[in-house]
């Protein structure tokens, strides 16, 4: 996939993977189109369980995750 188009060859090629959207994103986008009534979903981009969260997002999500756990 040649994402750079021009009238000369660049010094370095640009490698763009064909699978530009992961399954999770694809699902959330499709569900969002039909949102309403029984079509509802949890956005995994906005909610991560603390145990699975990576270092960067863990701090931001800790409070929310803890809040949910406290409801259990």
């Amino acid at each position, binding site marked *: 996939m040649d994402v750079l188009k021009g009238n000369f060859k*660049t010094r370095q090629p640009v490698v763009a993977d064909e699978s530009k959207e992961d399954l999770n994103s694809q699902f959330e986008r499709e569900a969002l189109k039909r949102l309403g009534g029984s079509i509802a979903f949890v956005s995994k981009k906005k909610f991560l369980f603390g145990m699975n969260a990576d270092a960067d997002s863990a701090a931001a999500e800790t409070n929310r995750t803890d809040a949910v756990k406290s409801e259990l």
Partner: protein
Amino acid sequence: MAKVLFINPLVREEDVPRHIPYGIGLLASIAINAGHQVQIYDANAWRLGDHVLRQVLEADDWDVVATGGITTAYGYIKKICQFADEYAPDALLVAGGGFLTAMPREIMTFLPQVNIGVVGEAFETFNEILAQIDANLLEPAKIAGVIYRTPDGGLELTPPRKLLHDLDTLPYPAYDLLPLEEVYFKNSQALYSEEGMMARQRIDVNGSYGCSLVCKFCFHLGITGDMKYYENDEGETDVVFDAPGSYTRSIRYHSPRYIVDMVKYLHERYAIDFIGFLDENLMTMHRATRGTWLTEICNLWISEGLQPKCVREGVEHDETCKGVHWGGTSHATLCDPEILKHMRQAGCSHLVYGYESFSTQILRRLGKASTPKTNFRSFYWTMESGIRPIPNQIIGFPTEDFDSLRDNMKAWDKLGIIVKPFFATPYPGSAWFHVYKDRILEQYDGDLERYLLELGDATNITAVISENFNSVELYGLRELMVRLDYARLAEYEKQWNLQHPDANAIKKADEAELLRRITKPVVIAA
């Protein structure tokens, strides 16, 4: 020769990419013709991750990284600027287009990575920048139509760039440098008509620049004679656009021959079967030429063999049809039955009408030169011609009230219009933005950039300028309108009247305009 990377920013992420970056395509063509080395990365088309944006910026030793677009692309443009600063630090970062032209000083402040901003039309300005780069002697002060940073950290606007007089001197956009087959043709479907729905190879063409009308919600990108330079209260040169007491216009259009030759070229080269005209208002140009412009385009369309077979033979359109259908924009007051029928004969399948409202008092204050009567009239004429009218609607006008909402609902009911209206949105550069700037800032805690980042295509509420209704009410009212729920609307009106005994939206809106009327002469330094 300069090595140039154009990056088209992501916009309207909620939908698939449907429109080519026409302006970038033109600038790329102009730069190539001037002998420069050019690459385009169409981030909006590809929708790839940040890692690709980084690779693109690191793919070569760019002399210039150029980006820009309309205000709704601001969020991604900001990202491009940050990435360019980090991954192509030696390149000159140039930004332009409507987002920057609307407020050059503010944008250059929000985006400190930008070296030079192109204000207004870039066709000649950008080439002059490249020529200076080529000569290894960058002196932006000598280039008209830019804003640049001075050694003391200030910002300087050079004199305005004159608009290109003869548009036909422009080359065709660099269509070959855009992902037509990979992306755009796959999204050819245009749900405006049966023919648009079945389009397999659709592409955009722009036949004209500007509009003679002065709708208060509209921004003409500073390329239609709408931009004036003046000295602000701080003694700096700045730009001003449409404002009460100050409306100026200079519309321009390609010759019918140029347009039809380009369509013919696209048809032959890419097997195009549908053209979407990007023009602000085709009818303005038709009227400005005393009814000859569209007539000649249609005549040439037919004589050059572009007329669709289904129209020529008077049969229903199907997948075997040959030729090129098209759609564009019209105007309620400026159209007439003869030209509409002629357009249909040439293959026009839909026309977008900004009817906006069916309320007399709303339209009277809009600057659109239309009335409910002309809305109805053009609707019938267009339907009669066989073209689908696309009846755009807006709610949340400054003087919107329950009567105006009901006027819309009755019209929708009568005409069979199925619509979910836009919300009145004061985009930067519009007269509304000029009048309501303080009120907009109040809604964003004084943070103008936050407003820019939130702006979308007006299907959701951003800044409210309605004197009567707040954002919660407007969302609710839109739902009731779409359902033609007159009973619940009346029920809410009763409650609302009790809470607002002294409401007088018209008086408030008129006072707001009076307060922001431009009374002192505006310096036009061209």
